[in-house]
């Protein structure tokens, strides 16, 4: 045994600790499983034995939950689990080459655990560090700005079995990279000030101000926040809940990360405002697993706010105004950003989107009225409480009031966060971030819009280009087909598997795009992709399926040439290489004669 291996924790003990920490509440199953994974590096069957027995949950249910989330392992994983962020922006920064280098350096095959159980190297969906990639996760912790040198250093640290906690701190440094501040990031936060302003008036007044502000949801969908709070307040129920959605999984987005690191007080204060407005007494912040590194900081902010009576019982001394926030950490599932899937996950279940209606605002967490808002929405609500709805409505455009944090990544000099009033032209953002010879930008992420250079006069606003924030920049050298293919792989990986069209359709779409990429494409496949796109849009259960074809439809519409180049054949070709499909038989028989090969079709017809 290597000398530096620490004693593997006892699975039963790990499970007992996890259950105790979460009050043996079955609703906390996912959090318990996360704790066991963190303690053991995987979820051993003995740990499941304990949870099954103590919580009286069916084993199949526990397994069903654990197997849904990418970051939970039911088979023994490497003691070092390295995941390369696989967004197109990471790839543009050379992530795949670095991944190969690391695999060579560690003598491990991608996607497998090394024979000595030391390490595994694989990819994961975008980790939200596009402005400082290529990025990886090491045992759940983010490492940024990967270079060949850093890869070699990591290989050495892993081979020497140095615990990640003892690695150079610089590896884990996450920059905020804020390059433009406006109303939200430019306002100095004094904890409690917005709450004091709100408490000076009635909850109804706050709702009225929110409606007057016309503040719309910052997750991308743009539902008016004031209406949501009002609906939650008025819906009948035994209790009300607030949820801050920090499950920022849409590739290219990282503004939640920066807000959580930079303006956590504003987020939690916004939640308290929401509590005042809706009557909720409990709130949750759903933090994506990739942002685990922010957890201690966030818990510290919560503690500080409790001590300052900005959370807890009788907030700011107001009798009966009780509200507290618990942080739930995700475990690698993009679909949980969908609000009803997020609520399922909060309840410790698989993150399957619910049938809607009923909407969460009437039947959400535990079937009770629940307002789910993006963290940026909560932060912005503080501005409304402080300065009034009318003031806020004066910023931006009439239909898209206020400011928006834009996450710039890709081909530009200064990737990072830019806060603009809504209505800013794409062209302006590109000029500010130092983008040159830009071919296209992807607005909002893979489910958003592909905008070619001819349309850079379009505006970031709900009435033109709605956005969750991401703006990925592609210069003229980039292949827009490969961009779309990367996004299609993302959706296939993240489909929850509940409904037929998305479960099967996203994988079929992925295979078709791969077929084109592998040189087997023909006009037949192009037509098939078109048909599949329509089916996904019309039949899918939730937004993931509906938008899974957006990157393909967008690039087909705007960059048809990138596809045309891929249609190598006029007639239908198989998706696989026929001659290669004989390779195993050739090897087993030792044959290499002419009949042991399939000739390319062109030769035969010549």
């Amino acid at each position, binding site marked *: 045994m290597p000398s530096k291996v620490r004693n593997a924790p006892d699975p039963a003990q790990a499970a007992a600790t996890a259950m105790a920490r979460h009050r043996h509440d079955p609703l906390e199953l996912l959090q318990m499983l996360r704790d066991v994974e963190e303690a053991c590096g995987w979820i051993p069957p003995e740990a499941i034995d304990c949870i099954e027995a103590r919580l009286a949950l069916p084993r199949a249910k526990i397994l069903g939950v654990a197997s849904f989330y990418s970051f939970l392992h039911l088979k023994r994983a490497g003691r070092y689990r390295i995941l390369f962020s696989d967004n197109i922006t990471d790839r543009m920064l050379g992530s795949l080459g670095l991944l190969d280098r690391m695999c060579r350096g560690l003598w491990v095959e991608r996607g497998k655990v090394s024979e000595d159980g030391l390490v595994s190297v694989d990819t994961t969906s975008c980790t939200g560090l596009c402005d400082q990639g290529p990025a990886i996760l090491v045992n759940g912790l983010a490492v940024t700005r990967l270079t060949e040198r850093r890869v070699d250093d990591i290989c050495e640290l892993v081979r020497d079995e140095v615990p990640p906690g003892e690695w150079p701190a610089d590896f884990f440094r996450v920059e905020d990279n804020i390059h433009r501040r406006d109303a939200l990031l430019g306002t100095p936060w004094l904890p409690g000030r917005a709450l004091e302003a709100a408490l000076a008036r009635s909850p109804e007044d706050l709702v009225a101000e929110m409606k007057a502000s016309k503040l719309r949801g910052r997750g991308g969908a743009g539902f008016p926040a004031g209406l949501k709070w009002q609906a939650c307040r008025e819906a009948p129920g035994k209790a009300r809940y607030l949820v801050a959605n920090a499950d920022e999984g849409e590739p290219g987005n990282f503004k939640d990360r920066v807000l959580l690191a930079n303006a956590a007080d504003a987020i939690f204060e916004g939640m308290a405002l929401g509590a005042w407005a809706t009557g909720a007494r409990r709130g949750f912040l759903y933090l994506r697993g990739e942002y685990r590194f922010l957890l201690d900081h966030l818990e510290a902010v919560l503690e500080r706010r409790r001590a300052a009576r900005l959370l807890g019982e009788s907030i700011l001394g107001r009798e009966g105004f009780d509200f507290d926030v618990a942080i739930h950490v995700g475990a690698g599932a993009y679909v949980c950003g969908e609000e009803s899937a997020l609520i399922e996950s909060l309840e410790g279940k698989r993150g399957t989107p619910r049938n809607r209606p009923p909407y969460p605002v009437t039947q959400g967490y535990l079937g009770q009225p629940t307002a789910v808002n993006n963290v940026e929405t909560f932060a912005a609500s503080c501005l409304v409480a402080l300065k009034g709805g009318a003031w806020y409505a004066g910023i931006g455009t009439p239909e898209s009031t206020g400011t928006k944090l834009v996450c710039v990544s890709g081909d530009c000099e200064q990737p990072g966060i830019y806060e603009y009033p809504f209505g800013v032209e794409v062209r302006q953002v590109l000029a500010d971030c130092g983008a040159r010879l830009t071919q296209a930008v992807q607005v909002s992420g893979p489910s958003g819009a592909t905008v070619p250079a001819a349309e850079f006069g379009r505006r970031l606003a709900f009435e033109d280009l709605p956005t969750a924030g991401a703006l990925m920049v592609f210069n003229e050298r980039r292949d827009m087909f490969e961009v779309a293919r990367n996004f299609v792989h993302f959706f296939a990986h993240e489909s929850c598997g509940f409904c037929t069209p998305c479960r099967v359709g996203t994988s079929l779409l992925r295979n078709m795009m791969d077929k084109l990429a592998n040189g087997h494409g023909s006009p*037949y496949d192009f037509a098939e992709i078109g048909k599949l796109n329509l089916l996904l849009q019309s039949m899918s259960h939730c937004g993931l399926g509906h938008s899974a074809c957006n990157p393909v439809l967008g690039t087909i519409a705007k960059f048809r040439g990138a596809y045309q180049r891929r249609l190598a054949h006029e*007639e*239908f070709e*198989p*998706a696989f290489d*026929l001659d290669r*499909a*004989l*390779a*195993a*038989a*050739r*090897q*087993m*028989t*030792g*044959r290499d*004669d002419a*009949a*042991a*090969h*399939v000739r390319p*079709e062109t030769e*035969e*017809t010549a």
Partner: protein
Amino acid sequence: MDGTAPRKLKVATTSLAGCFGCHMSILDIDERLFALLEKVEFDRSPITDIKEVGQCDLGIIEGGVCNAENVEVLREFRRRCKVLIALGACAVNGGLPAQRNTLSLPLILQEVYRSEPGARYGLIPNDPELPLPLNKVHPLHEVVRIDHFIPGCPPPADAIWKVLTGLLEGKEPALGHGLIHFD
């Protein structure tokens, strides 16, 4: 199809990874075969024993694609026939032979020729006359473009009759209840 002269349609048939059960079903058309033969002429087919497929109007193929020879024959049919019909379960979804697809081919060859009692010291056949197996068995439509499908194991003679006569009349063939079945 041609429409001008009462030229007989040329039809070729073959069986790839099939059991010839579908061809038996063609024969099950019975006395209607005579009526059919007034309108069609068979090219390469087990019925004529012609080995090379010529230019045809219609190709009817039974069985899936499991080896190199199947690929060559299928491609030849695609080149020479204006319209291709996949006939029967194996042609449509791989059928029984495709049930090996979840196993790796080396494992199968090892198991069949080396590990079985009595074949323990055997060799995997390597005669160039024998077609090499593909990694997986594929239905026809995964290898070439197919125009029509008649499912069934085997398809009922009436289904074959209905599709053929439909095509002769220039109609898009549709099988109703009772004629479309997968077993």
